[in-house]
């Protein structure tokens, strides 16, 4: 390994923090300088992480760096290490990509806020903490990074202090999150007590032979700590609140990265440190948490009236998928989980940015008021549809590939272990997928389609600078969906293998054959079966050909035009139409300036749907617009009548009313209740660990 490469991770982390301090110093002097600084500080880490792909992912090296050059003395780690294996790099890539996209989006999105230098300082500190967390090889360092992350994310959530509920979201995140922090700290203290080391590799080498009541309790505490950070089931309300009120670019970071850090911690703890993921009791516990979050949050999303809150519940549900797959303990399951973790950043990030764009343009996120924006914001609408199709798992988008793997992995696990429990997990995942689709149908109908609420008549498409980061994510959604085998071979496969092969990790950090001394067998690299059953590219080609053929056939003979304007022009050119205006008859084909203006007042009347784009040129001889082109109202006068938001799925919701009202009450919004749920979960996990693990 060349010496330069081993410096990359620390340079990347330092770049974020350095950027943060520089912006705090000189950010308020010059806006352009500040943005340039931010851009540099998010680009450099991304580039460095990309440069690490070849040595770490492809060649399977592990990049080690000892802070202050305190290298291990006789197999004993005495310094703080930065250890980047493929798993760490995988999550590092997620962090840096998210930071890059989010910063790019913030430049335009946040331009209506003030004291932005504080925003960027906090944002870069957050990114640095997240990257440090994924690259660190020291348990206590991970805790410190998590605390920096919590602190900055709370500040960023409450950044728009006047935004409804922002302070509240921040406070709840802090209070309930502190349970997780305390658990982590206690878990770390107990581990240290047993092993007298904090280095991950060293813990991994010594722990499996040293299991006793204390280490099992430490395992339970660490598990609860990371479950809090991944905001799985009983901890999820804080996450939902924070994502609802944070600026969209920060919601992306919370849902796309912070939850992923919890996932990363869980994988590290279960696969590397304690290596007890093969124990059926651990598998059942972790997949159970995942599946519960998956199902409960997807049904909670049904009830939401706020675009971002709906997305927030979906992100917990998707993290539930990730955990349910990663907790299976098989190579395929871990692969599926990592794949979905990556996809979740891409599509959920895209959706949050779309929500931000809607809020930027229309000024509200209320699903009961919005509607019909696809005519005003067609480009955002297209991006949203890509994201929605991805998250609902429609082929050939990326959500489908990873969900397919999750179903395969969980069902295979069920069959191979003979445990029907995993089949239930598989069914829950499959059903949650269609429920996800249902809530995105709800969003698309109540935000982008349906009728335009007259109060959003002047909505404009968002600037291109905001759409570029969205396009980055959208393109990645499509690419990772079209080439699942390549993604598994070059990205998630090495990461999963790195997590499973603890021996290599230990050897790299503490010298050759250390792992063998402690009796940790090195696993053979597992080849993951390809998704050979499904070749998205050829299907897409076929679909394009068929669709084009069908379209062509339908377009070949059609002299008649299909919109009002075109038809009017067409008929006028044929001399078929005589046109009247309110002031009297005028010959066809002449310009009718009064007619352009005449109907305007008419359609300003309440209840009459006016469309400024089409009004004017579309009258028939009655002086009214052609009613043929109004939506069908059984002959009644058309009026604004949007079926959206809470109106959709009432039959379904009615059948589930007891379930829904129970969970509505459960999410009471009182911080004490949330703490209580957290404490209950902690007690449950402790008890479960003592009894079964």
């Amino acid at each position, binding site marked *: 390994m060349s010496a330069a490469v081993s410096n990359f991770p620390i340079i990347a982390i330092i770049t974020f923090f350095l950027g943060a301090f520089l912006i705090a110093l000189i950010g308020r002097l010059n806006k352009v300088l500040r943005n340039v600084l931010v851009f540099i500080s998010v680009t450099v880490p991304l580039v460095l992480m990309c440069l690490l792909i070849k040595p770490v992912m492809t060649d399977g090296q592990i990049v080690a760096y000892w802070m202050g050059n305190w290298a291990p003395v006789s197999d004993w780690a005495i310094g703080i290490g930065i250890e980047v294996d493929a798993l760490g790099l995988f999550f590092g890539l997620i962090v840096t990509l998210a930071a890059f996209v989010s910063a790019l989006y913030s430049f335009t999105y946040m331009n209506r806020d003030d004291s932005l230098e504080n925003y960027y300082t906090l944002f870069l500190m957050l990114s640095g903490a997240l990257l440090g967390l994924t690259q660190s090889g020291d348990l*206590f360092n991970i805790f*410190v990074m998590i*605390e920096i992350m*919590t*602190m900055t994310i*709370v*500040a960023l959530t*409450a950044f728009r*202090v006047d935004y*409804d*509920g922002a*302070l*509240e*979201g*921040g*406070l*709840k995140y*802090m*209070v309930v999150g*502190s*349970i997780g*922090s*305390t658990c982590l*700290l*206690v878990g*770390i*203290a*107990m581990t*240290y*007590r047993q092993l*007298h080391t*904090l280095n991950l590799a060293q813990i991994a080498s010594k722990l499996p032979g040293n299991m006793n009541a204390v280490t099992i309790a430490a395992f339970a505490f660490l598990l609860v700590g990371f479950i809090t950070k991944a905001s799985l089931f009983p901890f999820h309300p804080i996450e*939902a*609140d924070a994502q*609802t*009120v944070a600026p969209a670019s920060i919601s992306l970071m919370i849902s796309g990265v912070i939850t992923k850090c919890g996932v990363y911690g869980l994988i590290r703890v279960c696969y590397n440190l304690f290596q007890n993921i093969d124990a059926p009791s651990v598998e059942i516990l972790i997949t159970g948490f995942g599946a519960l979050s998956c199902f409960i949050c997807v049904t909670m999303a049904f*009830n*939401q009236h706020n675009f971002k*809150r709906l997305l927030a519940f979906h992100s917990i549900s998707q993290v539930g998928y990730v955990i349910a797959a990663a907790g299976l303990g098989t190579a395929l399951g871990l692969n599926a989980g990592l794949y979905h973790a990556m996809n979740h950043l891409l599509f959920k990030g895209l959706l949050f940015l779309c929500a931000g764009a809607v809020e930027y343009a229309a000024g509200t996120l209320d699903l009961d008021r919005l509607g019909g924006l696809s005519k005003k914001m067609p480009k955002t609408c297209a991006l949203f549809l890509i994201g929605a199709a991805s998250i609902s798992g429609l082929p050939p988008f990326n959500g489908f590939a990873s969900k397919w793997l999750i179903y395969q992995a969980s069902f295979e696990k069920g069959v191979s272990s003979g445990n029907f429990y995993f089949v239930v997990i598989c069914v829950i995942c499959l059903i949650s997928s269609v429920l996800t689709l249902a809530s995105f149908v709800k969003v698309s109908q109540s935000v982008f389609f349906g009728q335009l609420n007259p109060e959003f008549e002047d909505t404009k498409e968002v600037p291109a600078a905001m759409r570029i980061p969205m396009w980055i994510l959208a393109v990645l959604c499509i690419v990772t969906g079209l080439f699942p085998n390549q993604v598994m071979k070059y990205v998630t496969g090495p990461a999963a293998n790195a997590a499973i092969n603890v021996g290599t990790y230990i050897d790299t950090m503490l010298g050759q054959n250390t792992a063998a001394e402690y009796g940790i067998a090195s696993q053979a690299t597992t080849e993951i079966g390809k998704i050979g059953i499904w070749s998205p590219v050829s299907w897409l080609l076929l679909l394009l050909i068929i669709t084009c053929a069908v379209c062509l056939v339908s377009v070949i003979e059609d002299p008649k035009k299909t919109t009002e304007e075109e038809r009017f022009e067409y008929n006028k050119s044929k001399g078929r139409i005589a046109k009247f205006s309110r002031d009297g008859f005028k010959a066809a084909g002449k310009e009718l300036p009064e007619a352009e203006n005449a109907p305007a007042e008419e359609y300003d009347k309440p209840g009459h749907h006016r469309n400024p784009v089409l009004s004017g040129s579309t009258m028939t001889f009655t002086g009214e617009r052609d009613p043929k082109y109004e939506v069908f109202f059984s002959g009644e006068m058309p009026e604004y009548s949007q079926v959206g938001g809470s109106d959709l799925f009432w039959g379904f919701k009615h059948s589930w009313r007891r379930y829904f009202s129970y969970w*509505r009450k459960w*999410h*009471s*919004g*009182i*911080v*004490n209740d949330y*703490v*209580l749920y957290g*404490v209950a979960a902690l007690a449950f996990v402790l008890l479960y660990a003592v009894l079964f693990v």
Partner: protein
Amino acid sequence: MILENFVASFFLIALGLYCMATKKNLIKILIGMGLCDYGANLLIVSVGFNPGGTAPIFTISELSRDSFFVDPVPQALTLTSIVIGACTTAMVLGLVIRIKAKYGTLDSTKIRKLRG
């Protein structure tokens, strides 16, 4: 003596959690968070304690096989953790002040715009 420390630290954490779960006043919730922190800190310091050990301050020449001292690492961890705890407290106090200004109350049952 170590055992009492462990019992006391878990008692403090439990007390803190109880406080956070039942007290409706935001300041009291904050105090609960502080108690959790102190409990955890006490635990870490106790973890590194060796009965009869001296303070871990040596020069290289003084260090020998026979020197018996308490583990310095947990003390460093505790220091870090105390700093983090202070930051958390400051952060929450800041939020509480703004919440008081905006909601006019510190009652956690009334601060529930985000729910359902």
